[in-house]
């Protein structure tokens, strides 16, 4: 015998492991033992197999892998002695599971053991089979097990019954074979067999409908009688638990009766008496008694209607609820959830107790109680319940707060009787638990706010107050900032005061203060700060006195390292400084958001691309979700009269600019519009440094708000020396851009010249310059005029840096293509051409009119010429 074989006894090994002070020591000991065991196995050591397997089991329990011991189990099972078999089967059940293929090898051993003379061995085999057999094994061995269901020894019968359960679960087809034997088991006297027999019947009913029918018809009465016997039986020491005879049997019987009675009136009738007896006679001062009562109530709730019994059941539950034992209360709450479906009146009576349970110190009880309260809410009690819950929200644990907030919000949303109450409750929840409020909830709140137009003043003032005290709650800040931005003037002017409000004086700079504090607060995330910027823009329009200060703040963010804030700051600054005239139109009040579409969309959970939902991200190719870009575009859509939807995403624009597939001539004017507007904008950015900012039409500016984002990235991508879009972009960069854009010149849509022709027009003439316009129109599109402007130099000096600008009134839309060059040779030796497109929304009613401005450099001297073109043909 190997001297290093596992001579240690199990107990010594355990002692050794216990003596280890560190995990590493323990691992070392275990490794040594495993090595010894493996050596013993490979040597086929007979003597200590038993011990080795016991050690393996211990090691397995500690969590170490022990698969090398599996074959040992098989060998042990195959050996004739009882102790070896015993430990082999135990090892089998612990170390293996039904997925291992090794299990197949055991099938034969088990089969032999099932027919063994020694009934204990038969019991062992049944046990093992019952715990881990797989489907194939079940099929093979089912007939054996069936036979054993009628064995003389009750222990075997009971084990066979449980084994059958597993077989039937694994192979439902075999269920029919077991129905009859199972029914006969129900007539047993031995409690163990009865218990397992009932279990088998319950599972058979769950698996097969015909079994259910069979049992219902034949066995219900028998079962009722059994239950009666058990309930009335005298003291039996064997099965007695604290004065009640075999509560487990009681409970299992009640369970089976539940399954049989569910949905069937006759069966339910026959059970009524015994259920009433059990419900009333069982003592409830012991846990066993309560367990039986619990099961009884559960059964009463499930079977067919019987008024008297139901009342009894609810009373029992009420008693449970007021018990001091937490277990009982927990169980009662659980049951009440089911009871609500049947008889909500009765449960409402216990509402106060349930509310108390929500505040209990025990986490499990709190959870159950909260769910129950949620089910209890209806229109009449919603106000008081919500008040209680919100009061509790303040003091609840953080883990619980999330659940509680979610429930409060959904209760409020579903049952609020009037808007002002809804808003009030949300205003209370947000400061306390704003961080737990989900996005859909505050979006819905905003939708409601926009719809409650008479409450705007009240809302914005309340939010202002809350913001002073609870400035770290993310959601509160978002909602407050949005409202202050929208309804700022109501805040300052105390408009729309409601009766119960106290007057509050807020100056414009206070309001701006609040937003600036929010934007500087670093614990708030990006989306919130972006919203603050947006709100500042709105306020700069509504509070003209603070406009400069707001502008300074925004300028500060132009250097922000966060791309989102930087972009916004730049755009907004540009709007404030250069586009005063459109700013107010841009930041007009949001329209009333339509609740129906919003909730419909929310139900479909589709992030809306544009309009309504404020939180929906706009899907732009540079991958940055810009939540509040949506309102910007929305406003643009609304305030511009002629909506040539600039929703050609920046992706197309990128595509176009890099000249991959230049749009064919047949492309829509709209597409080209976008393209041109993009290039115009690009030009715009680059020529910011030059004193003569090129003005494009207002519509261009509006629509380019969307595409402004992409040019910034394009500039980055091109790595132009101008770096981040700063104000002064060097001319070098601009000329390279110009070249690229010039490349586009000829590509811009060539209008087919088969429309009505118009005479060319000398738009402007001075001593040094002549401007000629040539017109054309596309046949189907009378509103749009394509103009080709030609500039001729009348002086003997060449002009450089030639820039042509034009401005048109509101009802016209103007587009300028890049000029063919910016140097005008002298004395008409060459000319510059530039294409324009004019769209007249008042075509037929008003004719075109244009102011032009031409700037150029002559001999290093800047010259500016201006004029107005009034002589457009009338029918243009």
């Amino acid at each position, binding site marked *: 015998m190997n001297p290093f074989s596992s001579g240690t006894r199990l107990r010594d090994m355990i002692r050794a492991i216990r003596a280890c002070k560190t995990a590493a020591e323990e691992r070392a000991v275990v490794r040594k033992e495993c090595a010894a065991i493996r050596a013993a196995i490979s040597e086929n050591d007979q003597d200590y197999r038993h011990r080795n397997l016991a050690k393996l089991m211990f090691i397995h*329990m500690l969590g170490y892998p022990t698969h090398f011991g599996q074959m040992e189990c098989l060998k042990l099972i195959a050996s004739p002695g009882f102790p070896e078999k015993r430990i082999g089967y135990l090892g089998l059940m612990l170390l293996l599971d039904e997925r291992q293929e090794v299990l197949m090898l055991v099938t034969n051993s088990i089969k032999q053991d099932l027919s063994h003379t020694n009934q*204990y061995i038969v019991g062992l085999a049944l046990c093992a089979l019952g*715990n881990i057999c797989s489907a194939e094994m079940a099929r093979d061995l089912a007939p054996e097990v069936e036979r054993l269901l009628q064995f003389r020894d009750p222990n075997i019968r009971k084990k066979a019954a*449980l084994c059958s359960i597993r077989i039937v679960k694994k192979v439902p087809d075999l269920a029919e074979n077991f129905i009859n034997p199972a029914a006969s088991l129900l007539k047993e006297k031995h*409690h163990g067999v009865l*218990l397992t027999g009932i279990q088998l019947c319950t599972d058979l009913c769950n698996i097969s409908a015909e079994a259910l029918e069979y049992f219902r018809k034949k066995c219900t009465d028998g079962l009722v009688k059994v239950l009666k016997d058990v309930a009335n039986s005298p003291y039996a020491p*064997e099965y007695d638990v604290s004065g009640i005879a075999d509560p487990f049997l009681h409970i299992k019987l009640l369970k089976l009766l539940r399954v049989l009675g569910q949905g069937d009136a006759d069966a339910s009738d026959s059970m009524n008496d015994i259920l009433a007896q059990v419900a009333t006679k069982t003592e409830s001062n012991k846990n066993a008694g309560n367990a039986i009562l619990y099961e009884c109530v*559960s059964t009463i709730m499930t079977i067919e209607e019987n008024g008297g019994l139901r009342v009894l059941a609810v009373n029992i539950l009420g008693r449970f609820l007021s018990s001091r034992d937490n277990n009982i209360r*927990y169980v009662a709450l659980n049951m009440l959830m089911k009871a609500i479906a049947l008889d909500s009146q009765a449960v409402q009576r216990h509402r106060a107790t349930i509310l108390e349970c929500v505040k209990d110190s*025990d986490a499990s009880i709190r959870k159950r109680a909260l769910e129950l309260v949620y089910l209890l809410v209806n229109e009449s009690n919603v106000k008081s319940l919500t008040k209680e819950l919100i009061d509790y929200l303040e003091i609840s644990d953080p883990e619980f707060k999330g659940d509680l907030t979610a429930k409060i919000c959904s209760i409020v949303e579903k049952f609020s009787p009037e808007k002002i109450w809804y808003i009030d409750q949300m205003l209370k929840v947000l400061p306390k638990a704003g961080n737990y409020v989900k996005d859909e909830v505050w979006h819905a709140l905003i939708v409601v706010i926009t719809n409650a137009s008479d409450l705007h003043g009240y809302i914005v003032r309340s939010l202002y107050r809350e913001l002073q005290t609870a400035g770290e709650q993310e959601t509160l800040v978002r909602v407050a900032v949005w409202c202050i931005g929208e309804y700022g003037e109501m805040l300052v002017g105390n408009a729309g005061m409601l009766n119960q409000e106290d007057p509050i004086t807020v100056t414009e700079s206070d309001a701006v203060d609040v937003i600036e504090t929010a934007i500087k607060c670093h614990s708030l995330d990006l989306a919130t700060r972006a919203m603050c910027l947006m709100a500042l823009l709105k306020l700069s329009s509504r509070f003209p006195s603070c406009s400069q200060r707001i502008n300074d703040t925004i300028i500060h963010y132009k250097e922000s390292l966060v791309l989102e804030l930087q972009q916004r700051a730049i755009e907004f600054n540009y709007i404030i400084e250069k586009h005063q005239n459109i700013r107010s139109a841009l930041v007009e009040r949001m329209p009333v958001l339509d609740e129906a579409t919003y909730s419909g969309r929310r139900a479909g959970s589709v992030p809306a691309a544009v309009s309504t939902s404020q939180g929906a991200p706009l899907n732009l190719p540079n991958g940055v979700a810009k939540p509040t870009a949506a309102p910007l575009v929305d406003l643009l859509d609304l305030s511009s009269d002629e909506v040539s939807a600039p929703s050609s995403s920046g992706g197309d624009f990128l595509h176009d600019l890099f000249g991959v597939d230049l749009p064919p001539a047949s492309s829509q004017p709209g597409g080209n519009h976008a393209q041109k507007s993009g290039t115009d904008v690009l030009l715009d950015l680059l020529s910011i440094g030059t004193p003569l900012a090129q003005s494009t039409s207002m519509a261009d500016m509006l629509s380019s708000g969307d595409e402004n984002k992409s040019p910034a990235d394009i500039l980055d991508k091109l790595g132009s020396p101008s770096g981040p879009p700063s104000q002064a972009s060097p001319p070098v960069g601009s000329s390279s851009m110009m070249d690229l854009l010039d490349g586009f010149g000829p590509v811009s849509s060539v209008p087919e010249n088969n429309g009505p022709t118009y005479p060319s027009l000398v738009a402007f003439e001075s001593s040094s310059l002549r401007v000629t316009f040539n017109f054309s129109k596309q046949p189907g599109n009378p509103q749009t005029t394509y103009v080709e402007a030609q500039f001729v130099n009348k002086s003997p000096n060449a002009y450089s840096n030639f820039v042509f600008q034009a401005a048109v009134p509101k009802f016209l839309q103007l587009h300028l293509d890049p000029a063919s060059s910016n140097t005008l040779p002298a004395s008409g030796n060459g000319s510059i051409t530039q294409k324009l497109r004019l769209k007249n929304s008042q075509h037929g009613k008003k004719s075109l009119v244009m102011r032009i401005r031409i700037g150029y450099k002559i001999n290093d001297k800047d010259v500016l010429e201006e004029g107005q073109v009034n002589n457009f043909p009338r029918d243009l």
Partner: protein
Amino acid sequence: MGIRFILMVNKQGQTRLAQYYEYLTLEERRALEGEIVRKCLARNEQQCSFVEHRNYKIVYRRYASLFFLVGVDNEENELAILEFIHLLVETMDRHFGNVCELDIMFHLEKAHFMLEEMVMNGCIVETSKANILSPIQLMDKAS
């Protein structure tokens, strides 16, 4: 069905007995045991004996230095399981005589045998202490 697993864990979190009635890998078992034990150990005497964890309920009770945890389905009667735990403890007490944690540790197989007699495939088989202990006593006498 019914019972998913039975664990006996001491106050330091070491598992003394583990019987699973459904298949879980070793890592899953250790993770599960760690989580549940932490939850139960953190609770005090006044709190109720039921803990909800993922999709099952854990019914537990502390006897001296050992926690008995039983994981069950959501439909199971929790109070009955509490009774079952008590029955298990009483059975072991009768066999070992004033059972303590060390008894279970050093006679792990016997503890397993007893448990096997009582629960099979997640269902309670036998609730009479005499019936449970008779095969085990026979085996002891024979060896």
